[in-house]
């Protein structure tokens, strides 16, 4: 049981929290701007590298560098929207999707040009797990990750339910045409959507790098799970994205749990394999499989979001 918690549940929660943050951005951008933002992963990477730059230059811990990363990524997102996506507001959605592919490549290439391709840790050395929480093997970084994610989610909730702009974002997510008719300044809402999306993406990137290490494909590698989480939860539903992120994260980590080797029903062994059904190499394929199943069986997602 402790094994299970330490090796599967905790990592699943960590990964799920990170996915949740990224998926919220993808989900909101989809529902308000009506396109799948393929550069979102690279926004995450960008944020992670901005923090890395601060960590290296000022020798601060990553968490302290986080606000800089967030500010820089938000600014970048606004510039990108203005130059690469805004000209296509009235075009077919496909065109802006292709543009986002271009932006993704540009971001990644810029990162490689500046920082090279070698993976690197934020901080040198390995920290031991916190003794106070024995026998659970929980590291300080785990607390940081889940704690930061929680703070951001609460802040988002307050934004969406207590502020005028937050409600305008929900309104535009519901029906962009009606929002325009009502007199809501749609370009302002779009700008705020990018800001929120970028803040969450930057945080997700930094947290991911804290959990593992930083490398130029950090975010691009997560793109499929992010989309899967957003679709699973229902596009346009921030809580759906959180739920979807946690589910996908859990599923990915639990997929290599050895208990699946032995399929038992009521104590009678049905199958016994010498390696897991889902080989660890296929972990990322799982998220994709879930996504395809959702798209075919229930495209509006668990929390009934926008379909297209």
């Amino acid at each position, binding site marked *: 049981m402790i094994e299970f918690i330490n090796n599967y549940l905790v990592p699943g929660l960590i990964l799920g929290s990170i996915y949740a943050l990224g998926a919220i951005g993808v989900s909101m951008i989809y529902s308000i701007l009506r396109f799948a933002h393929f550069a979102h992963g690279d926004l995450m990477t960008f944020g992670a590298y901005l923090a890395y730059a601060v960590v290296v230059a000022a020798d601060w811990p990553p968490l302290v560098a986080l606000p800089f990363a967030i500010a820089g990524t938000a600014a970048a997102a606004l510039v990108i929207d203005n130059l690469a996506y805004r000209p296509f507001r009235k075009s077919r959605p496909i065109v802006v999707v292709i543009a986002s592919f271009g932006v993704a490549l540009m971001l990644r290439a810029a990162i490689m040009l500046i920082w090279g391709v070698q993976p690197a840790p934020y901080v040198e050395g390995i920290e031991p797990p916190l003794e106070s929480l024995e026998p659970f093997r929980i590291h300080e970084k785990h607390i940081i990750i889940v704690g930061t994610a929680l703070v951001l989610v609460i802040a988002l909730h307050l934004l969406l339910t207590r502020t*005028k702009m937050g*409600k305008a974002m*929900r*309104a535009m997510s519901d*029906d962009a*045409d*009606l929002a325009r008719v*009502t*007199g*809501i300044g749609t370009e302002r809402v779009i700008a705020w959507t990018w800001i929120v999306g970028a803040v969450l993406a930057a945080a997700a990137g930094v947290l991911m790098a804290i959990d593992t290490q930083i490398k130029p494909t950090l975010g691009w590698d997560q793109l499929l799970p992010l989309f899967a989480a957003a679709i699973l939860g229902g596009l346009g539903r921030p809580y759906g994205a959180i739920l979807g992120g946690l589910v996908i994260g859990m599923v990915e980590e639990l997929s290599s749990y050895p208990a699946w080797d032995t399929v038992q029903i009521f104590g009678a062994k049905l199958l016994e394999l010498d390696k897991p059904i889902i080989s660890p190499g296929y972990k990322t394929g799982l998220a994709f499989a879930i996504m395809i199943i959702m798209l075919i069986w229930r495209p509006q997602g668990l929390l009934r979001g926008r379909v297209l």
Partner: protein
Amino acid sequence: MLVAEGLVGGYGGADILKGVSMRLDAREIVVIIGPNGAGKSTVMKAVFGLVALREGRITFDGQDIARLPTEQRVRRGLAYVPQERNVFVSLSVHENLEMGAFVRSTVPRSVYDRVYTLFPPLAEKRRQAAGELSGGQRQMLAVGRALMVEPKVLLLDEPTAGLSPRAMDEIFACIRAINREGVAILMVEQNAKQALGLAHRGYVLATGENRFTDTGAALLANREVAESFLGGGH
């Protein structure tokens, strides 16, 4: 107050409007009726800036608003209630009203109270999601949302579409009450007879052009209008 002259335009290729003109004076209720495809909704959308015009002028309070973006028209006091999908379904009733007042920097409590007084069912359900309301209540919310800017002109696109006869009467009564408070109303209606009974003046459109213009009562009494156009509605 609101003048549209020689409107020509439509969606993309074909022109739906082929030279429509109309006028709305302060404190009036003006109704637009006509068969399907006549361009009734299109005129309204053109006035609000949702449809591209190839020719024509639109003036509001003496100023040309044809180039103005929608947000600006709302700020000047023009409010529009579309026929379908006219509420934000995942927002609560109160939040919908809040959004209606988006262009205003401050919204005194009295503005909300006025809407809730006019539409009591909304007051009861103010925390409920708009998606859970009945058809008639949604219509009330849609109109209430438009009233939040305290508009000078209210554009209503088939406000009674799909409503029961009782709900229809309620809506018409509300429209009359709103008008009495000083709001000019331009209304497209399928329930032509009842609408004309409510209206000061009416325009009958067919195939994108004006056909008849007169006071509401005169149009009702007009034989030709009655035969061709007043069969409409349920």
